[in-house]
């Protein structure tokens, strides 16, 4: 195996361990069905691997990963638009387990999380993309770089999207 390939594999393994959870969260915003989502997560990882050889460091690794993940997510939505399935309808086993000890608190948190996810999934795809990047803690500059729009545009759109998300959360019981 060549040294270059070995270096790529090491970098890829590090990216997967560092961004694996973020990629899974991001896949949640594009796909509600667990089995299909798992497939999407793998496809995103595969797309990152294919693009990694061409990554020249002209942007941060974080921007690179999120950009590819979102592009793959968009392709998934464009090629297969399943009927909307709110998270409440998914099996309980598909919900991530919260390790906190208090049952009531745990139930409330799970409910809030499900409502947030459902509200995010109800947004148009590009709105989803932007709010997810904001929730992942990317700055306006980084979001602008990923999306290919200006920072001002990001700020304006995020304000509108947050209002839409709040409305969507408010509509849900």
């Amino acid at each position, binding site marked *: 195996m060549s040294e270059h390939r070995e270096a790529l594999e090491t970098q890829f393994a590090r990216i997967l361990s560092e961004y694996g959870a973020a990629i899974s969260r991001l896949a949640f915003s594009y796909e509600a069905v667990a089995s299909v989502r798992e497939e999407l*997560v793998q496809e995103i990882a595969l797309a990152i691997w294919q693009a990694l050889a061409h990554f020249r460091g002209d942007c941060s690794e974080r921007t690179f990963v999120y*950009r590819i993940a979102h592009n793959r997510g968009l392709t998934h939505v464009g090629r297969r638009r399943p009927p909307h399935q709110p998270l409440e309808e998914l099996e309980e086993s598909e919900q991530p387990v919260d390790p906190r000890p208090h049952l009531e608190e745990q139930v409330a948190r799970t409910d809030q999380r499900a409502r947030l996810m459902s509200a995010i999934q109800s947004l148009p795809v590009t709105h989803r993309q932007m709010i997810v990047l904001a*929730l992942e803690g990317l700055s306006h500059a980084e979001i602008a770089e990923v999306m290919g729009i200006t920072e001002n545009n990001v700020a304006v*759109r995020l304000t509108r999207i947050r209002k*839409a998300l709040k409305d969507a959360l408010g509509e849900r019981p």
Partner: protein
Amino acid sequence: MTEENVTHTGTHTNDRELDTWREQWSSVAEPPAEFEHKVQQRIKRQERRFVLGNLLSAIAFFGLLIFAVLMRHQSTWMGTGWSTGICVLVFVAVAFRIWFSRGTWRPQTQSTRAFVELWHKRVTARIRLLRISVYLTLGWIIFCAALTAANWATIGQDVKAHPKVWVVLLVVCTLMQYPVIWYWVAWLRRRKLAELNEVTKIMNEMDGKSLP
């Protein structure tokens, strides 16, 4: 969002509402079990498929070329004509594919916007390619029919059948291919048009045309 809760630090905007959402969001999902292992397996599978696919294509193409050369001294030129026809067909199909794929190799920038624009161009190119494929397929059927007719004298002696029976059989076989081709093209075209519709919708969303 309550304005009084918002603090601006450079380009970052932090507020309680966003922080609450972030906290809820961060506990949404963990990577699926054996995620890395599954991805590694998939990469290996894909690389094997890529090598095997290219190898088989090269073997098939050069095999047909060799077949065409070897068959050129035969009394009937059915085999030569058929294999040469296949080679020409592959060459023309690849040439059309390259021609229609101009400007769709890589995005102009690395942004999502550029990716979606590239995606739009690619889907449009595929739809055009699909239209050409129909003409090429029809051309191929006509070519095969003409080839058989041209070699009729030799084939007729071998099969010892009445020419009328063979003509009817040839016409029926040709006509039977039409519904299959029509269905396949209609299905692919419907899929690609639906994809184009989705991409256009995403582009409009990006332009802010569907923002509330």
